């Protein structure tokens, strides 16, 4: 494809208009047909796709060969410390309590001297990558993981950094990665939302902005689910009807269908808007049972439930696998409400507890995806919005650190058992092959079959990209 994603579509003014409103409910042209004409769909897929007219969530192939088809993102919100987990810095011991040679970078709060990690690092797997004893189970999967030790963001504050990690911009209302991906690929299962964000106990800070659709149509916004909610209808709005038995509802739908067919026949021309609305009721009816089934983790065999562990974090990872298996495009799993990993004090006990909660579910999902053959086309991202300082805050904690931190990638197209980039001797700053958050996004899009520079959406006179005017694909983490 020689022209940018948008440009091809823009050659016909009709297409541009359709795309700017995302092609829904607008006369005779279907979004899928549109993508097909733009060369985004293979000829074989086109036939199948045109059937799902006017559905903005219809699955569509990526423009380039994808290495991954779906994404799961463990968001360790609050900022996990890289020097205590995946980026060992023995030099901190030498300067314990002393100012770092070369000084400290400015972060949100006042910091002091070097704080050596209270955790032990050990080499794991064939690759011999060092992982601290905070993540013993995840460490067993390290040969499937690419450890990016040279991440960087912009500022040492949660709000803008969450926005940068999720939406590629620190302040303005922009679509989240999940919204972009769902816009680009649709979703494989029309009976479930295409993009689901889960967080036990409630919203993280910045709330729904983290999974917003920004200027994209609202259908691409993440659907929020609190896995702690006891009943299904609290998980997904209007998913069941306590007042109408299923048989009666079926009869209602039969009558509705008859009325809609009569209505359509009274018109002198076929109108895909009318047809789409008829179909949406059929979908909704099926969605009720399918969603209930997808969230019913209790139906998993005992050994699988044990693998994930009997905890809310285990539960949500297990639900995530069930969702991915059923064709959900993008699942984001937050560690919890507010910002649990934000260990400004007592980093030892706090990180121990948090890692205990996170380790088994992450390892379980990697293992489970692998044993089902799904890891090879599922992209797994594990990390926070930034890392933490190698220097102490208030005696026992660490402050926020956007200058250097670690994220993990695994699965579809990722070079497992590799380490990419490095921070300085103390872990304060990415110095070797720095990877900006924009680069991470470019790489994720690449793995999903998009060129981040051509994957655009026209809004307010500009063709917006997830990566704005930045980003380069990090080929070093790609298998």
């Amino acid at each position, binding site marked *: 494809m020689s022209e940018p994603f948008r440009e091809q579509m823009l050659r016909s003014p009709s297409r541009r208009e359709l795309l700017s409103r995302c092609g829904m409910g607008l006369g005779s042209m279907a979004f899928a047909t549109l993508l097909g004409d733009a060369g985004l769909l293979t000829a074989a897929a086109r036939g199948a796709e045109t059937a799902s007219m006017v559905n903005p969530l219809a699955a569509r192939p990526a423009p380039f060969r994808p290495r991954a088809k779906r994404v799961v993102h463990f968001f360790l919100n609050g900022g996990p410390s890289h020097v205590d987990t995946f980026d060992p810095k023995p030099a901190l011991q030498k300067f314990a309590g002393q100012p770092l040679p070369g000084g400290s970078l400015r972060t949100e709060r006042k910091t002091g001297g070097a704080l050596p990690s209270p955790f032990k690092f050990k080499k794991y797997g064939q690759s011999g990558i060092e992982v601290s004893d905070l993540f013993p189970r995840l460490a067993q999967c390290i040969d499937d993981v690419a450890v990016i030790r040279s991440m960087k963001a912009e500022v040492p504050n949660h709000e803008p950094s969450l926005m940068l990690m999720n939406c590629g911009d620190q302040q303005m209302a922009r679509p989240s990665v999940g919204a972009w991906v769902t816009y680009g690929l649709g979703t494989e299962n029309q009976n479930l939302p295409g993009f689901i964000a889960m967080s036990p*106990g409630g919203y993280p800070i910045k709330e729904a902005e983290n999974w917003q659709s920004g200027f994209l149509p609202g259908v691409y916004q993440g659907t929020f689910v609190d896995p702690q909610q006891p009943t299904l209808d609290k998980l997904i709005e*209007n998913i069941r009807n306590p007042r109408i038995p299923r048989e009666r509802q079926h009869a209602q739908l039969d009558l509705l269908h008859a009325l809609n067919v009569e209505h359509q026949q009274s018109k002198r021309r076929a109108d895909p808007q009318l047809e789409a609305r008829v179909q949406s009721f059929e979908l909704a009816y099926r969605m009720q049972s399918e969603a209930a089934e997808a969230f019913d983790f209790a139906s998993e065999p005992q050994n699988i439930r044990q693998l994930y562990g009997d905890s809310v974090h285990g539960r949500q990872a297990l639900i995530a696998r069930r969702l991915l298996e059923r064709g959900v495009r993008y699942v984001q799993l937050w560690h919890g409400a507010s910002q649990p990993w934000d260990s400004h004090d007592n980093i030892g006990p706090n990180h121990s507890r948090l890692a205990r909660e996170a380790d088994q579910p992450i390892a379980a999902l990697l293992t489970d995806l692998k044993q089902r053959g799904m890891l090879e086309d599922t992209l797994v991202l594990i990390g926070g919005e930034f890392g933490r300082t190698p220097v102490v805050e208030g005696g026992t904690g660490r402050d926020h650190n956007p200058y250097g931190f670690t994220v993990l990638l695994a699965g579809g197209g990722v070079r497992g058992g590799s380490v990419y980039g490095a921070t300085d001797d103390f872990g304060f700053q990415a110095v070797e092959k720095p990877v900006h958050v924009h680069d991470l996004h470019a790489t994720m899009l690449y793995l999903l079959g998009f060129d981040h520079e051509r994957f655009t959406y026209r809004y307010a006179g500009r063709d917006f990209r997830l990566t704005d005017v930045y980003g380069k694909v990090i080929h070093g983490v790609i298998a």
Partner: protein
Amino acid sequence: MVLSTVLICCAASRAVGGDLWALKPVQDPPVPDVSLQAWPRTPIDRFILARLEAAGLEPSPEADKRTLIRRATYDLLGLPPTQEQVRAFEDDASPTGFEKVVDRLLASPQYGERWGRYWLDLARYSDTKGYVYDREATRFVHAHTYRDWVIRAFNQDLPYDQFLLRQIAADKLPADACANDADDNSDLAAMGFLTVGRRFLGVTYDIIDDRIDAVVRTTQALTVACARCHDHKFDPIPTEDYYSLYGVFAGTSERLMPIHSPLASRSPRFAEYEKGLKEREAKLDAFFNSAKADLCARLRARTSDYLQAVLRADKLHTEIFYTIVAKDDLNPVIVRQWQAYLFQAGKRFDPIFAPWTALAAVPADQFASRAPQLIHEVTADARLNPVVAKAFADAAPTSMSDVAKIYGKLFAEVDQAWATALKAAATQSLPDPNQEALRQVLYAADAPTSIPPGSVSDMEWFFDEETRVKLQQLQAEIEKWDLDPAAPEFALILQDRAVQSNARVFKRGNPADRGAEVPRRYLRAVLGEDRKPFTSGSGRLELARAIADRNNPLTARVMVNRIWLHHFGAGIVRTPSDFGTRADPPSHPELLDWLAMRFMEPAASGHAWSVKALHRMIMLSAVYRQSSDDDAPGRDAARTAADPENRLLFRFNRQRLDFESMRDSLLAATDELDLTLGGAPSDLASTRRSVYALVDRRFLPGVLRAFDFANPDLHIPQRSSTTVPQQALFFLNSAFVMDRARALAHRPDVQRITPPRDRIDKLYRLIYQRPPTSHQVDEAVQFIEAPPAPTPAAPTRTTGAGDWQYGYGAYDAVAQRVTGFKKLPYFTGDAWQGGSNWPDAKLGWARLTAEGGHAGNDLQHAVVRRWAAPRDGAIAISGRVVHEYEAGDGIRALLVCNRGGLLASWTLHNQSADANFSPVPVKQGDTVDFVVDFRNNLNNDMFTWATQIKFVGAGGGEWDARKDFSGAPTDASGPLDPWELYVQVLLCSNEFHFID
């Protein structure tokens, strides 16, 4: 005949660069000649027909009368016509029948609610601020006043130029032309257009960007915000123009103004409100003033450090890089204030800073060689302040850092002299005028060491973290108090600052990297190269006038296109907020200009810039009255092939109801719609019109998103129109739709009719404004009379359900009882809570479910599950309270009996406790309260508390909180009967949701 789409659409030539069609003056084109003389009703039709004929196409016949009145009523009011209105129109054989309908609709107060909402989409309207810190108030107190002003302006047909002027600069205009009262300042509410945007955590650059974007895209359809970082890639908008506008908004500060309006009635509790307000304001003022005085003293004492910092200003962090500053940290905001001061001083020979200016221009590596000569020259200048001259004559600085130290020392000496002078005697100035001139640098009203006047929100960044938090808390106290129903209405206005300065370009959008200064003035693209700088205050009124100007080529075209868009479902220009080079050219450029000309002229019925006159002109045309469905077999397919998007308007576009029309139509069908105008935001579960529902940009309800409601964070010129199963789920399963089905089935005028076939006929007329076909009656009867499904198992409620109440209140430790118990007002089907949104705007997170719940936001909002004893006896209470979160500080659980007082209390943080007591004596009517509050802070205060109560001894009786849990005591949320199920289907149908 098949025409290429491309040929049709490119009839208007695509302009390039400075040749943009939209920037050329509006023309008054001649009305074209057409062949089909019988069709046109108005000149509009001739423009449309000329294009159709050129493409070899024919228009469609006129729609039938029912379709037409339904279309017009939805179009202008967002509501269906009544069956009587349909009948009256069908029976009116006069040629002016439709005209009468349009005039009646335009005079309806519901018109402003429909068209005002389109404007609110452009104005990124929200009742809340977006993400804020916990210490801040989340609600805007002024937003709904703006919403009501917009609705009123549409209803009163306020001339569009006036409408714009007021939204940008009402504070600088004489009071509303429509007002009869000199004290009436209700027009200030219009400025909500500028102030209902997101708060961006207080980052000024982003707040101003949002305001520029809202103003220019809404009124001019130019995407000026693209020029924030670089010249616009496609349109003639240089980055300097962005900063010209930036300077205008940077010269303003916010001010909350109470509205005085003869329309407003004063609450009997007003005195109480006012007293509380004064107390809160006094607290804030006292703290603010002392914080300011303290800060200014600190800043003066650190002049040397700040001057040093100016030298590295480009390395400074901006507000988005938020560091928790302590009192003695250098504050980047103050550094930039010094930087701006020195920049201004450098424009002329400044008697104090001339040496600074001269030396700062020298590259660092030449400083040593060139400084002595420069110092010699500048100190020889008679205009230089002798005190400064002396300081430099004695010094040999080797770098700018040394220069900063010299000034620092000078200012320290002057400040010391001033302190000494004040101790000696009360005085206004230092005796030595040269020293006094130096003192003025630190003490003048606009000194770089001062805090400019303004509200807390304008200057929180000047302070250290601790002070900032305290200021925001005190400010939040006031804002929360202002939500009291006894409070007056408010307008949040921008007012010009006393001192104005131009903005400097932020290179690549980076506020730390300042480029050239640019005058405050309007866009080159509109006014040309020789446009004049603004001269009055910030220039905001001049900006407004440049927009609301007959000669502005964009203003009228943009609004005409917006109105056309909402009538036809698509604009003449398809990108209503982008008339730039990359937009499609208009499908009918001459028509757009002709309409823009008519819009700016005084209408036959009255004034110029009349939006209502424009509606009338458009709706009386033949093109508006066309059928959306053709009747000639074969012709339609050919036309669709030739013009698949119907850009030439050979038929009317079928349109689906938007969220507001959909919801309002449901309430209209049931006759529940509350047509009260204006006021504080209502709940989506209420029966008020949808335009009044709370718009919370932070927690936008899922139903709004599912139905393509405008994203309140962004200017939305046209909503998406998606079809997704979540919409269908809402219709199949939501309590709102089922309740409407029930209400409609139980309308007295429906219930009164007993023969099923007649009742079905009535329902059709109420819902679709037409009678059913006999086939439709047959299938309805069949549905209603079908034998009930074999599982009629209605949800079983134990008889004990009525003995429980679900509420909130406070635990009074002295009296050992719950005080202020009130019932939670809203039942979701699974939980009792404050409203349909959770958290609720008033009652926050307070919630009770079958299993447990969530404590409210403070100790006054402990959640209370109350059991009342139906008889005398002794009971056994059993159960377990569980809190299972590490984060936060846990909860406090209390078991309180009105007879025995406190039975037990637990503080639980990721812990659980058994709550078993027996026997507990009770008399009939006694209450046992299961109370949970948030302990000390609001963080993860969810809990479970499954409890059972059992009478011990004879008589028996058992209650189980989980099993007994229920909604409203009436059966309103029970299963639906066949008629209700049938009505629900009618409300789901396509016929209800599409306008032909």
